């Protein structure tokens, strides 16, 4: 199978790789580029563990072909911490015990980031809706919802 070049920005840095045609973005990120923060849960678009942000929109990297991401701006959870300082969402997930096994966490955080980028002070309903495409089998969701609300409060306090 012919290899095709793909080039995009990942968490602010330029990446270029050759992938087999038809490779999903998830596999390209994990196996070629080495960013294992998006997880392959169901590969069916059901669980949300592979969620990434492409050009500002939440997408499922398991259903996105790497070739269609030429020139795109891709953000993953691995790019959130700056110089060893956790992103407010990461901090809130720790503080609110929103992580047990951790497999859903990167997808949850990406979905929450898109929400907070657009709606800095979300209601509980906004949070539930924003996370509705992400499945967690450990926490029962409540600590995750609380973590996102906590991060929103932390953000608005920092801004004030």
């Amino acid at each position, binding site marked *: 199978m012919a290899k095709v070049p793909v080039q995009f920005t990942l968490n602010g840095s330029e990446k270029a790789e050759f992938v087999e045609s*038809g490779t999903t973005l998830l596999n390209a990120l994990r196996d070629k580029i080495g960013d294992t923060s998006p997880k392959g849960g169901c*590969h*069916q*678009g059901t669980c949300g563990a592979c969620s990434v942000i492409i050009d500002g929109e939440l997408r499922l990297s398991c259903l*996105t*072909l790497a070739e269609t991401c030429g020139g795109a701006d891709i953000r993953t959870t691995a790019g959130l911490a700056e110089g060893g300082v956790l992103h407010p969402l990461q901090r809130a997930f720790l503080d609110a015990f929103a992580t047990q096994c951790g497999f859903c966490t990167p997808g949850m955080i990406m*979905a929450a980031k*898109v929400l907070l980028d657009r709606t800095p002070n979300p209601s509980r309903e906004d949070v*539930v809706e924003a996370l509705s*495409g992400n499945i967690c089998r450990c926490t029962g969701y409540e600590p995750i919802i609380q973590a996102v609300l906590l991060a929103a409060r932390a953000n608005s306090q920092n801004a004030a």
Partner: protein
Amino acid sequence: MSLALQTYSSVKDANAALQAAGARYIGGGTLVVRAANEGDISVSSLVRVTDPGLSRIAVSGGKVRLGASVTMAAIARHPELAALAPAARAVGGPAIRNMATVGGNLFAPSPYGDFAVALLALDATIVTEEGELPIETFLAGRDTSRAIVTAVEVALPEAESFRFLKVSRVKPKGVSVLSIAALLRRREDGTVTAARIALGCMADRPIRALAAEKALLGCKLTVQEIAPALMTSSEGIAPITDPIASAWYRAEVLPVHLGRLLLV
């Protein structure tokens, strides 16, 4: 993985490429990449079209033309498409809605395709390179159709006259137990003068509840008067059985949910 992606700038060129064995059209990828990930070896190449016209939404004179690549998210947030927004929001979670397209939803097998249920109730017109088809004709022939859908045209209903309901077990978002869309015209006194009802999950694709539509004519939307329509709503249905619900369960609860939708 042995998939080859072919990219074309025009639908005409892509149509030719689609004639090859194993070639499938890719819109948002939520159906076809899913199938490939699941091991569907009948898919060997994917054909996509980058023509920006396919992502256009044009509203004029009470009608909307949705390009086939328009996403559910784009419909849900469009200020002039409030009538269609509930059906668009019923599809998937936020990430799926950013990817899933109008064109793809027309091909989604039950239990998916909630938006197509709404389009069926609204008597949408399906536009392909080869011409235009009423949605009912299109859905009946979709398994063998090889022409690329380029757009969907639909008359925008008044908010009052159009109702949509999706029932799922997981809240707020889950796969359909069933979905129902109803377009009702009523006289001032509330008597139904025209009804078009579409059902999701009641066959392998969206179907109309023809007997119930007929039974509603001349009725007012009261518990007593809609009872005959609810009785006949399961005429001609062949619900799917899947991990969400059995065919028996879906048939049992259809009249209940149709009643709730009509009595809103």
